């Protein structure tokens, strides 16, 4: 290496190390584009969801002609391979080599948690419209990790527990994938349901990628419960719903699902067996809200499928960032101000068709729909709202401070009220 090259490299390294130190540096960088690093699982077990995440982001950027807050946007997409170690490495690349102003994305909680732990050290703004791990906006909150347009796992199952009580259900059995996302979603329902006088007869936890649900379904059939709550994602959800139907349980016991269980990514491939399943969510593609309808129609026209949670969340997440950047004239280099602005930004114009704001912990407050899967005129199935719970935060009706004193939901702690 000659001396000149050495100097060049050293300067480059120093620039990276000292980025944001000298005001002249940020002034100089201001002229360039806003760089957004998108992390999505394009390979691995959840690759199909990852592709829809990218679609959601690109759909929005196309609409705004890749311009936010008066500046061009450069999108850098990296594959996290559904693996936390890879996600971490790619996040490093986006921040340290790609000089991205912010990161957005990730699907699996473990990838999101790994990246969140990394940006805690770098201070890079990191947006997680899909990662639902409760504690990222609760007990282990990191200020620069913001759940724009996302939801915390137990946020929607709290109202579902309340809704179940109102239906007059007395006994419920839950079945869930045995990992944190499942523990948290179940915990939300179970806590509200038991505190309201309901009884959880039994909870089943099965490993991810369970092919045969018959041992569980057989036991559930014997329990004589009023309803079943299922927390399933991806292929497990497809298989569970099919087997629940072919076991003849569909005719006898109503099925309540976590929102991901009846997400378009699942029911797109299903037929009659998914009809009538109830689930709670902030987004219902079958809502009659004109803004939601317009989004669903345009998305379907462009990508040939009804938008799923992944497409919707990423689309709205980027829209949220855009709204914040507009307010501050695109000055993304000022991280502190950027994060504060995002936290204060109230998003209207999202496909939800109503304004959404974040709570003091960086998690959105939504009007939560209780949705029912119904058949559309063209034979496809989608989720249509039945009732609405307005202004639901991740803390439901609990006082945040008191709520945070209880342990996070896990297999051992489901918030079951002792009778």
């Amino acid at each position, binding site marked *: *290496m000659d001396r000149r090259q*050495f100097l060049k490299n050293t300067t480059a*390294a120093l620039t990276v190390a000292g980025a944001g130190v000298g005001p002249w540096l940020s002034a100089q960088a201001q002229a360039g584009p806003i760089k957004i690093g998108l992390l999505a699982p394009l*390979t691995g077990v959840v690759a199909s969801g990852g592709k829809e995440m990218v679609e959601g982001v690109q759909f929005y950027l196309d609409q705004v002609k890749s311009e936010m807050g008066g500046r061009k946007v450069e999108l850098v997409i990296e594959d996290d391979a559904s693996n*936390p170690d890879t996600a971490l490495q790619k996040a490093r690349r986006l921040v340290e080599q790609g000089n991205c102003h912010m990161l957005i994305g990730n699907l699996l909680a*473990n990838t999101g*948690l*790994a990246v969140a732990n990394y940006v805690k050290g770098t201070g890079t703004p990191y947006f997680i419209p899909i990662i639902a791990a409760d504690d990222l906006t609760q007990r282990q909150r990191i200020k620069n990790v913001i759940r724009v347009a996302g939801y915390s796992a137990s946020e929607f199952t709290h109202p579902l527990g309340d809704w179940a009580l109102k239906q007059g259900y007395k006994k419920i059995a839950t079945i869930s994938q045995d*990992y944190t996302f499942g523990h948290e979603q179940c915990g939300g329902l179970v806590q509200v349901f038991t505190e309201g006088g309901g009884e959880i007869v039994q909870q089943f936890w099965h490993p991810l990628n369970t092919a045969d649900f018959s041992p569980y379904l057989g036991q559930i059939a014997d329990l004589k419960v009023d309803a079943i709550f299922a927390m399933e994602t991806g292929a497990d959800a497809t298989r569970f719903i099919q087997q629940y139907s072919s076991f003849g349980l569909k005719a006898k016991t109503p099925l309540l699902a976590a929102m991901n269980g009846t997400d378009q990514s699942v029911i797109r491939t299903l037929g009659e067996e998914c009809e009538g399943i109830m689930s709670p969510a902030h987004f219902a593609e079958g809502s009659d809200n004109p803004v939601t309808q317009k989004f669903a129609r345009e998305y379907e026209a462009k990508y040939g499928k009804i938008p799923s949670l992944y497409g919707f969340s990423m689309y709205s997440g980027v829209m949220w960032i855009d709204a914040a950047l507009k307010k501050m004239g695109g000055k993304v280099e000022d991280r502190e101000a950027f994060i504060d602005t995002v936290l204060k930004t109230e998003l209207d114009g999202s496909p939800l068709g109503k304004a959404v704001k974040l709570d003091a912990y960086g998690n959105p407050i939504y009007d939560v729909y209780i949705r029912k899967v119904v058949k559309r005129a063209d034979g496809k199935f989608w989720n249509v709202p039945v009732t609405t719970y307005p202004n639901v935060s991740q803390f439901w009706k609990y006082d945040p401070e008191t709520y945070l004193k209880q342990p996070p939901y896990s297999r051992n702690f489901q918030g079951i009220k002792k009778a």
Partner: protein
Amino acid sequence: MTMPLTPTPSRVAGMTGRAALIAAIIVVAAAALPLALSNYQVGLATEVLIFGILAMSIDILAGFAGRTSLGHGAIFGVSTYVVVYATTHGGLPPAVAFAAGVLAATVVAAIFGLLAVRTSGVYFLLLTLALGMIVWGICLRWTQVTGGENGMRGDVRPAVLLTNSAFYWAVLASAAVVAFAMWRFVRSPFGLTLRGIRDSESRMRSLGYNVPLHLFIGFTVSGFFAGVAGALYAMFNNFVSPSTVALAQSVEGVLMMIAGGVGTLFGAFVGAAAIIALENVVSAYTERWQMVLGITFILIMIFAPEGIVGKLRATLTRKVR
């Protein structure tokens, strides 16, 4: 194997003067890397060193005892888990956590060794694979302790090593010491007995060597070094999840060793560098990078089955002659 074992007068710590000089030059050149590389590339170089140690520890068994282990990823990962757990939940200082991690890995390796040393060939491969899967299963399902699928996070790396360059130098220093120790180990009289076992187990037995005991010790020592790599990895990532102990980790270590050259020991670093560089360069262009990686392995196996370093060494020797 490759180097003559006859003693020559000018030896530095068991190396010939020339070998010591080459080693010193390589270490100095490696130490100068952070001055030339970007911050991110320094991170990658750190990863290369860590995985190089892992691949080298596998090479002790594969190259010198004729036993290819598919359980070393798990041993490596146990150390990572223990270090992260000890610092975040146990509140132990990094140095103590590091020692605990290496110790845990050594213990796990000893248990693996007890069960696996009486087998060889494909049975050894399968047994170590199964043992590794057990560790993975425990890490995945013992949610209260390991954090299950989500793993554990925390600030494991000591504050003085916070920058990429500082940490790189620390890892480089450890890698140099550990690599030298491994090199000495395989060339020690004990290491020679391992080679003897590789070449003919029955002859070693009839010469009066306790073959299972030697393999057991070899396995445990190899596990110790894998544990060092795992503990460094904990400090590198500040994070651990079941993918760190998964089969893919073991396989990656074995592939790095094979790509570098089985039995070349230092080829491990070359293999690690090749694979990590390839992963990063190719994945920037296509999401089908794993396919490219697969094809590269096939090509290496066809044209250089002895690995990159093995091939180079063979070519050089031929030229000299």
